[in-house]
């Protein structure tokens, strides 16, 4: 069970690395905004995995905080890009 979670975390790490590459390389601002949103989603998924791994519900609080605050950040970026 916990082995599966470790594999999932490793896959998330690889995926987050790819998203980070897009954030650094991304030719347009839209690419970078999307990449940062994807990275926030990765943090949420990783926190959920850690909650399972350590059997600790405290991580779920972190999931809620990152979800709510990351959403606001993405909206702000999107409006910034829209204005040009």
């Amino acid at each position, binding site marked *: 069970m916990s082995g599966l979670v470790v594999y999932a975390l490793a896959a998330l790490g690889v995926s987050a690395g790819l998203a980070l590459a897009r954030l650094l390389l991304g030719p347009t601002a839209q690419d970078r905004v999307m990449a940062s949103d994807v990275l926030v989603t990765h943090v949420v998924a990783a926190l959920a995995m850690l909650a399972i791994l350590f059997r600790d519900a*405290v991580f779920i*609080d972190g999931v809620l905080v990152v979800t*709510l*605050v990351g959403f606001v950040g993405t909206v*702000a970026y999107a409006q910034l890009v829209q204005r040009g």
Partner: protein
Amino acid sequence: MTSLILRTVARVSLHLTLLFSVFLLVSGHNAPGGGFIAGLVAAAALVLQALAFGVEHARRMVPVDETALAALGLLLAAGTGVAALVLGQPFLTSGLLHLDLPFWPEVKISSAFFFDLGVYLVVVGMVLQVIFGLREA
């Protein structure tokens, strides 16, 4: 200017986010959380309203001026420390009050909670002031 989807989500998420910030404030005594994080979450809820409906609408949601909010919080946090001085204890000594209410479980109120509440108000006031100011600039 803003999309219907954003306005609908902002309307739904406001109360959930504010409720969660109160949960973080209260649970911060024994678990991760506390006044600072709770204040940031509450401010994020109001910033989302400002993004979706404009700064003027968000300002009307907070009936108090943001600077006054931050000042009130600082007064509350400092007052918790001074109250210990008045009682002849070192600055910021925390006290615990046990309340035995009828038909209710035992209630414990610590003075650290009021300090946290002050921090919460300072953070909300400061973040709103900064973000609203940036939006209007």
